């Protein structure tokens, strides 16, 4: 088998950065803040790489939708081993309002254009926490979806996927072409070193296009009304002994 794989790589605020809400309450501060590849997308790229190393996959295309800086995210995927990149350039207000449905439409169009057999995405991005893009891309293509994957085995023209569900695991089989979304335990992503990003990845090609090149309308239907800080939880007391702890919990009526 020689699958052609599309992986989605989103540029998000780094997971270790403390989020600050903008003073106008219309979003969070992104300027001057460290960004990285969405951690679940790293797992998706890694899974594609492992299939390529097993000779099941022929080509991996890393796609990112967003402003110029998203090229860095694509370069990281190329440094990890993806073969080429596609940057769907969307900036300014349009990017602020870009939602999972728009991205799904872009991915679906690219899948058709590039003759893709397998799409691997992270199960969710750690900024919007939507957990929608994989499911919607599969729906638009009329492909099956294997969400929250923790183990993927390629079989004869289908995939056997172990999924993380509430209370345990589930095994399903999906016909190819299919969409897989990566959960935490699928693999341990490799680390792309800086020289690798600079040298190897620089030579690989990144195609640029816009949503309208693909015939995708990115008019938003969901509007942000406001963004606020979560309510602050006041720290309580520290106690000295287990006895004191039990006494406090009894006082609160919870033991």
């Amino acid at each position, binding site marked *: 088998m020689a699958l052609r794989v599309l992986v989605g790589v989103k540029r998000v605020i780094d997971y270790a950065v403390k989020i600050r809400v903008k003073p106008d309450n219309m979003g969070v501060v992104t300027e001057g803040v460290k960004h990285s590849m969405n951690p679940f997308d790293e797992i998706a790229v890694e899974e594609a790489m492992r299939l390529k190393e097993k000779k099941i996959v022929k080509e991996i295309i890393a796609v990112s939708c967003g402003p110029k800086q998203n090229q860095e995210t694509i370069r990281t995927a190329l440094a990890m081993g993806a073969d080429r990149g596609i940057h769907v350039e969307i900036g300014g207000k349009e990017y602020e309002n870009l939602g999972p449905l728009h991205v799904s439409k872009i991915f679906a169009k690219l899948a058709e254009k590039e003759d893709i057999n397998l799409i691997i995405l992270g199960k969710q991005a750690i900024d919007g926490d939507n957990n929608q893009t994989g*499911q919607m891309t599969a729906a638009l293509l009329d*492909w099956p979806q294997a969400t929250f994957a923790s183990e993927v085995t390629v079989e004869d023209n289908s995939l056997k996927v172990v999924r993380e569900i509430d209370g345990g695991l589930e095994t399903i089989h999906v*016909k190819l072409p299919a969409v897989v979304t990566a959960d935490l335990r699928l693999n341990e992503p490799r680390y792309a070193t800086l020289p690798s990003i600079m040298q190897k990845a620089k030579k690989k090609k990144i195609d640029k296009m816009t949503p309208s090149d693909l015939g995708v309308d990115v008019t938003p239907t969901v509007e942000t009304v406001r963004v606020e800080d979560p309510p602050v*939880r006041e720290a309580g007391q520290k106690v000295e002994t287990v006895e004191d702890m039990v006494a406090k919990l009894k006082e609160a009526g919870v033991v």
Partner: protein
Amino acid sequence: SSTLVVAEHTNDALTPITLNTVTAATKVGGDVSCLVAGTNCSKVVEELTKVPGVTKILVADNESFKGFLPEALTPLLVNAQKQFNFTHIAAGATAFGKSLLPRLAAKLDVSPISDIISIESEDTFVRTIYAGNAIATVKSKDAVKVFTVRGTAFEASPTSGGTAQSEEAPGVDVKNELSTWEGQSLSKSDRPELTSAETVISGGRGMKNGENFKMLYELADLMNAAVGASRAAVDAGYVPNDMQVGQTGKIVAPQLYIAVGISGAIQHLAGMKDSKVIAAINKDPEAPIFQVADVGLVADLFKAVPELTEALKKE
């Protein structure tokens, strides 16, 4: 307006979050219908007829729904939507709801709203973003609002007094040639389920290994508590992923949450900070968990947990 709740169940019983979702649906205003799709699921239909606030139950009992695969359920839901024109379609924000509703929304060409914690009006919803570090209020301009509901943010609806009528859903005879369900392996436990337990005890990297979680199980059995874990403990391979509490795991809001050997990373706090009372045991006095704990004990957990177990045995 009229809302359809996609019931989550096991064919034998309703999954508790369905009741929280019904409550959320009643907050939209207007009629609430439920769809029960499964194989030999009449018990679930009976259970739902007693839930007040539900007026109609659409039943789809068919072999195709074995394993509740989204590839089979989506065409069924599209058929129901064509016939009844619901203004809202909701499900619990669980592995089931999160898989199914976006697929349905894409088929209806609308943008779903995930994991809502509050409903401001028919078209305006509140949800957390950035692992709970910001709260966004969003307004949907789509004709049909498709959303999933965070169970801990809405009370469960009562389970008696209702008089819902049931009827067969339209277009039940769907074919699914895309996917098949092989089976499940669920963690067997006599302890309460993590997301609905009154008390949750979670262990973190400080537990050092999986073996040491026995200490927490013993305490949990004494307190009728569920046992959870931080992502660090899951990543280190101490316990399975379905025990993970946090933004990428389960969201819990019990009466009492006991964090043991958990430093309190942002992503963990996102999963438990709505608990009524938080107790923390950690040897590092600077651990961020103490900033949210109502009762904090700076101590070696390997001494404190057995002591706590003994103290509670005496009560």
